[in-house]
């Protein structure tokens, strides 16, 4: 037994021995595309787009609350932006996820469950619905109170070196790490 493994938890050592079990390229390429999508919109319109305002702007169609009415002017394009995100991800599913396009830059991994529909390989999460629903409620409250989410703060805000966004990102990253570790330690899986 080496000295290192006597001091450091062996499980932890194993994790850091392979920090990228699915390779790094899918993350880097995917991230660059996310940035490119936001940049295309910014170049043409001057808008630094975020994904979570869609929640409130869409609620303005069905609610007269003043919080939502402020987004009436932007609700149309935010609906189109969100539709584009769904469409782009579907395009990914029909091509790369289905194996129609293969590239060494993409490792598929083994999470969740794959199923076929009309010749397209689709994917289902195994994370339990109550986690998704309860987590979703907190995400819906938090992103709107906190003025942004992983795209508005994390991508556009950090990209413009906004101190507000950097503070927001550090806050939600640290809290999310602690939460996920506690949830896992309590034996909740998946």
């Amino acid at each position, binding site marked *: 037994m080496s000295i290192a493994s006597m001091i450091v938890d062996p499980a932890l050592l194993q*994790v850091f021995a392979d*920090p990228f*079990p*699915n390779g790094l390229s899918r*993350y880097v390429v995917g991230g660059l*595309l*996310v*940035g*490119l*999508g*936001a940049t*295309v919109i910014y170049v*043409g319109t*001057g*808008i630094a*787009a975020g*994904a*979570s305002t869609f929640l409130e702007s869409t609620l303005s169609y069905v*609610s007269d609350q003043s919080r*939502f009415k402020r987004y009436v*002017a932007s609700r*149309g*394009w935010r609906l189109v932006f969100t539709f*584009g995100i769904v469409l*782009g*991800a579907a*395009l990914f599913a029909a091509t790369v996820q289905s194996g129609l396009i293969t590239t060494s830059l993409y490792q598929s*991994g083994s*999470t969740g469950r794959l199923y076929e529909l009309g010749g397209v390989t*689709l994917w289902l*999460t195994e994370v339990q619905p109550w*986690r*998704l*629903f309860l987590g*979703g*409620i907190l*995400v819906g*409250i*938090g*992103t*709107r*109170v*906190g*003025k942004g*989410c992983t*795209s508005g703060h994390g*991508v556009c805000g*950090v*990209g*413009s070196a*906004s101190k*507000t966004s950097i503070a*927001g990102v550090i*806050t*939600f990253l640290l*809290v999310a*790490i602690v*939460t*996920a*570790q506690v949830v896992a330690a309590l034996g909740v899986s998946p």
Partner: protein
Amino acid sequence: MTNRDRHPAFLPLILLGGVIFGFGLGFSQMARPEVVLAFLQFADFGLPFVMFGAAIVTGIAFAVLPRIADAAPLTGDPFERRLKSFDRNVLVGGAIFGVGWGLSGICPGAAYASLGIGNVTILWAIAGMFLGAYLQGWWRSRPSSGDASAR
């Protein structure tokens, strides 16, 4: 600002940007809650490369465009930094978002993309997000709330 939708290329460009954005979320597997949770539980350190990879691209655009052009072609809006003001809400909201993100492994953009890759189960998360956004909007729209901060 209210007439943004007027230019015929405005909505098509928004759609194109959204498609690239969504394709990237699929490719990076951020549309899979398991992969986000794997980062938060220190089993796969890929996630920061998505977020910061994207931020580097937008960062270049945000830095360069204001120097080479006065206004965006489709809106006439100036290329300027529209920074959000800092207050306690950024930390409180960020912490609430963090608990939700850590519990579910899903954030708004990734949830929409998750639907696109066929993950109908994610409708639980999207329904939750609308409910959460509605609850805070209802709470903060009360005449007595005194909250006038934008966004």
